[in-house]
């Protein structure tokens, strides 16, 4: 039999405890708000604002109309005007643009010919959402000043770069490395210091000659090895089962991973100095994990998100890692071309580590 009084006693006790657990209250409110905002507002499946470069060889009135109409769709944001195909390929490889528009010199003639496409779209096909958007553009209407001038054949020919077979695993697997590392690395270190505090080990440890730096770095280093094991596992599975290529240098993949793992571990250590219990540390880790997965560009194209979401995403290590790993693995970009992302991760690591060391005192009060 259930005693209502005892049931009520437990109920009340839970409420009292909850009242004092600010972090859990934060999650009760924060997670739904975050999810609704992210999914409903930030995550826009109507793709817009894809960074695009234009190489206009024609320079005619018609080509200008074509460019204006392209912009009017809002699917693309023309961020670069270039003078040769090589420039477009470089921009695609470094990830600065996802679509390149090539307007040939004989555009006005081609548009009358049914058998030839009028212009060309060079698309980063490793992202299926961008690819889909590019396909839509081929059905675009041209609005010429005098008469509605419809092309006889196709307006655009789409050239798929980096993922000619259009397999989604190619896009997912490299980013997945980042998601897995974020989930495991942050949690490992986030609970590590708190656990010692909870079990009483820390009081003894801080009364020894050990320094904060030794303690922090000593806790971080083993997990870097674990991170490498995880990366190797995901890469091998991706290669063997899903045929995901590594177009860039394997060494670069590991360098990128090393920097990213370090960023996550120092973030975890910082949480560990902030949290009062292992549960709190876990909650903090989840708070970072959710926006990381949703905003980093792993699930949805980065440029399609509103500005605010993009700013937020720039703080998250996973955003930079997704750009790096896609660049290296899928587009064969070199680290010299991707250095701003690498730098961002290093700055993040340094700042979080410094904060953690500053926050951690060898004292109990």
């Amino acid at each position, binding site marked *: 039999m259930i005693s209502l009084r005892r049931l009520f006693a437990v109920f009340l006790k839970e409420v009292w405890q909850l009242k004092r657990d600010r972090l859990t209250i934060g999650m009760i409110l924060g997670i739904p708000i975050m999810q609704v905002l992210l999914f409903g507002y930030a995550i826009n499946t109507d793709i817009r604002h894809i960074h695009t470069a234009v190489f206009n060889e024609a320079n005619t009135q018609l080509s200008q109309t074509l460019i204006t109409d392209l912009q009017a769709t809002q699917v693309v944001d023309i961020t670069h005007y270039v003078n040769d195909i090589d420039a477009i390929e470089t921009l695609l490889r470094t990830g600065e643009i996802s679509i390149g528009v090539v307007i040939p010199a004989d555009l006005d003639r081609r548009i009358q010919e049914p058998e030839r496409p009028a212009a060309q779209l060079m698309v980063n096909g490793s992202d299926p959402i961008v690819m889909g958007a590019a396909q839509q553009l081929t059905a675009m209407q041209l609005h010429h000043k005098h008469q509605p001038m419809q092309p006889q054949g196709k307006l655009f020919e789409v050239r798929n770069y980096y993922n000619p077979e259009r397999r989604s695993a190619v896009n997912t697997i490299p980013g997945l490395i980042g998601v897995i590392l974020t989930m495991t690395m942050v949690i490992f270190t986030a609970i590590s210091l708190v656990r010692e505090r909870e079990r*009483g080990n820390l009081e003894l440890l801080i009364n020894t000659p050990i320094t904060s730096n030794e303690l922090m770095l000593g806790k971080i280093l083993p997990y870097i090895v674990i991170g490498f094991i995880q990366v190797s596992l995901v890469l091998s599975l991706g290669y063997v089962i899903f045929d995901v290529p590594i177009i860039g240098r394997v060494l670069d993949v590991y360098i990128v991973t090393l920097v990213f793992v370090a960023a996550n571990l120092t973030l975890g250590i910082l949480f560990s100095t902030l949290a009062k219990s292992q549960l709190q540390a876990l909650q903090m880790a989840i708070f970072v994990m959710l926006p990381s997965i949703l905003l980093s560009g792993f699930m949805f194209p980065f440029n399609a998100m509103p500005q605010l979401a993009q700013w937020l995403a720039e703080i998250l290590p996973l955003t930079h890692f997704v750009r790096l790993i896609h660049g290296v693995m899928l587009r064969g970009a070199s680290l010299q071309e991707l250095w701003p992302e690498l730098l961002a991760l290093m700055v993040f690591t340094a700042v979080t580590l410094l904060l953690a060391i500053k926050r951690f005192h060898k*004292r109990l*009060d």
Partner: protein
Amino acid sequence: MSSDSATQFSTELAIECHQLTRKFGNLTAVNQLDLAIPKQSIYGFLGPNGSGKSTAIRMLCGLILPTSGDAQVLGLQIPKQAEKLKKNIGYMTQSFSLYEDLTVIENLRFMAKVYGLSGKQQSQRIQAVLGRYRLEALQHQFPSTMSGGQKQRLSLAVAELHQPKLLFLDEPTSAVDPQSRRDFWEALFDLVNDGVTILVSTHYMDEAERCHQLAILNQGVKVADGAPQDLMAAIDATVVQVESHQAAKLKSSLLDLTEVISVTQIGRSLRILLNKNLAKPVAYIEQALNAFMVCDKTLTIKQTEPSMEEVFVVATHAQKKTK
């Protein structure tokens, strides 16, 4: 066995502090504590839970900052030079604080490295403490499977692993059986003979009696200090012992008397603490008992020597009165 197995007091002080105070919000955990602890001796903190023993020890190690006052430990200013102090002190926390998921030998190896012992020193010292604290047979066991006494031996082994000059032991015997406590204190005297100074907190009277010197703490204030024998000799009270089969009944009546500080029942006997200025304590009690009209032919009344517990009661009682 007794505290006179003591070696000569060194003239130098291991710990010295003046007006050391720590407040937590409105609570004053340690209030204007003065200490002068000589080297190579066992100094005890005797006091109930919450009397400020742990806070005082933690302040002297540099784990907690004092609100005011200053301390000098092994010639170093605390908390300013606390980091320099760390390699010269050993520490035993109130609850077991080594790693439950590391074996005995792994715990020892880890701590030896943390204290920066060289490879050769590490194996030498680990062998030494394994022998000294009878841990050889347990070396591959996890602390979670060990008894309170075994864990305590391991904690002490770790605390003295790097041969510190000073040991801080915070209620080291609170979770162990009497035999383990006896063994533990023997080990402490061995350490003192090797030149170590020990500051130990306890709430056991018998342990307090074994210290070379001790301070009685109550509500953050040092209410008495000195050698146990001196404290007992100088007690500000007289002890009268009454034996009667009506002890329990008498107790409450006696407590109402103005000159009585406290009454403790031990089986059939009552130990009555009386104000020291009373000229004839035995006669005073006789009179009182007659007034209660006790008819017990076996009743005996005699004056007796004070115990450590009575020193403690008088000291804390005096503090209450002055408040």
